């Protein structure tokens, strides 16, 4: 089976700041790659570089055997970390989802498009939101709606930047189920930025531990060792304890 993603020696310079350097990894159809790393590790930059949103990135990104810029955009579904949409824009959730399929804003929505959007919204547990105004969605609802907009085009590559932000714990579990079910059906490859090590262990076939360069890459049990975690984060875990600064105050 050929590689779905091949990233070779990718580097991104943002002004004076080298955001990522010498990042190489690959994934096959059906893989889920969890991208982990501390704040400022370049996780979002990596996703944006793969999407071609950062001009002047060095190295090479190939998707499905072609240079990334030659892949039809509808093959890629993207859920950004920061939702940059204008929420004052007059639109229903259904409009928003259909725009993901059309790659253009819909004036009139056909019956077929409406059914398609309703079906995908129902899959992500947001079927009841179809006619709700976009400006009135909660953070968690918006996350689901974004996922629906990404899935509606039936992408071969799904790029998810912290997809569980704002979703409650039950909803988060559901969301991983939808993604896995979609993946099983379509053999899509999923790249997912997350801070949740447990989610990475349970739902990813591979983990890319990043700290401006690749710290480790491989199956979760291989990539997430104490040594690699210490190299990326400076420590291996996190326990909740009384904060000394608060106690002394």
């Amino acid at each position, binding site marked *: 089976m050929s590689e779905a993603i091949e990233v070779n020696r990718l580097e991104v310079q943002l002004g004076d700041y080298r955001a990522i350097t010498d990042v190489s990894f690959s994934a096959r159809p059906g893989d889920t790659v969890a991208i982990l790393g501390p704040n400022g590790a370049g996780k979002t930059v990596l996703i944006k570089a793969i999407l071609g949103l950062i001009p002047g990135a060095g190295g090479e990104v190939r998707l499905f055997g072609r240079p990334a810029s030659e892949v039809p955009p509808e093959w890629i579904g993207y859920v950004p970390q920061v939702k940059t*949409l*204008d929420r004052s824009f007059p639109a229903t959730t259904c*409009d928003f989802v259909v725009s*993901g399929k059309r790659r253009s*804003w819909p004036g009139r929505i056909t019956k077929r498009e409406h059914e398609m959007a309703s079906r995908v919204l129902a899959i992500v547990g947001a079927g009841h939101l179809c006619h709700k105004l976009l400006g*009135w969605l909660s953070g968690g609802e918006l996350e689901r709606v974004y996922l629906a907009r990404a899935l509606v085009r039936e992408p071969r590559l799904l790029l998810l930047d912290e997809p569980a932000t704002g979703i409650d714990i039950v909803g988060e579990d559901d969301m991983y189920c939808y993604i896995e079910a979609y993946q099983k059906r379509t053999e899509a490859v999923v790249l997912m930025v997350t801070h949740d090590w447990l989610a990475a262990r349970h739902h990813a076939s591979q983990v890319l531990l990043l700290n401006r360069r690749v710290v480790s890459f491989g199956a979760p049990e291989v990539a997430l060792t104490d040594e690699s975690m210490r190299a990326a984060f400076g420590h291996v875990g996190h326990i909740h304890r009384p904060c000394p600064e608060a106690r002394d105050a």
Partner: protein
Amino acid sequence: MLEVLSLGFMQRALAAGVVTALIAGYYGVFVVQRGMSFIGSGLAHAAFGGVALALLLGGEPLWIAVPFTVIIALLITWVRDRTTLSLDAVIGVFFATAMALGIIFISRIPTYTIDAFTYLFGSVLSVTWTDLWAVLAVGVIAAATLPLWGRWAYATIDREAALADRLPVRLDDYILSVLIAVTIVVAAKVVGIVLVSAFLVIPAASARLVSRRFLQMTIISLLLGAGTAVVGLFASYYLDAPSGATIILTQTAVFLVCLLGHALAGRLTRTPRSNSS
């Protein structure tokens, strides 16, 4: 009322007013949703620089004011695209510069000219055939861009998604700014430089208050623009009031009605604006 319509100047005024309002109402929905309302005012002042240069050099003001304003619009878009400055700051720099140039140009004109004041405050009732043809040509161009409505709207609600989908978002920014610049110049003769930005903003903002969907907002903006132009023109004729100002005040009245409707519908609450913070 029909007698008024038999007057040549009134026919030209109505045609120019309505077509201008339709064009501005159409671009206005993008201007309002992209938070670019200040660009109308900025480019109108830039147009003043162009008109002043034309008066200094002699000849038809339109042929110099249009390229002058288009260059300013392109510079604003280019600086905005290539720097971290916000759009309002870039507009602030260029509109003051163009206005200052306009004042220098006017001071160099040896004889007193009333034309500059016609452009400043507008004179819909002195619209010439050249002005009307210019308005109609800009109207045809606006109609030709209708197929781009969906693409522009997509980039308006979510610019990053449009960029990720490799749509020509930056090229569209330049196209839209040039089209707005041309519209401003031809509309300035009708309503005046001082008031022209209202044509871009008030009908679209009123439409936003009563719309659930963007297509609905676009259609209502067009209808309100055209309707207020007709009502305002007749009102100005019968009240013997300046036409541009009367049209704008008619638009304001409609805006207040829409605001009232919005409030009565229980929507005058703190609406979420952006999720980017």
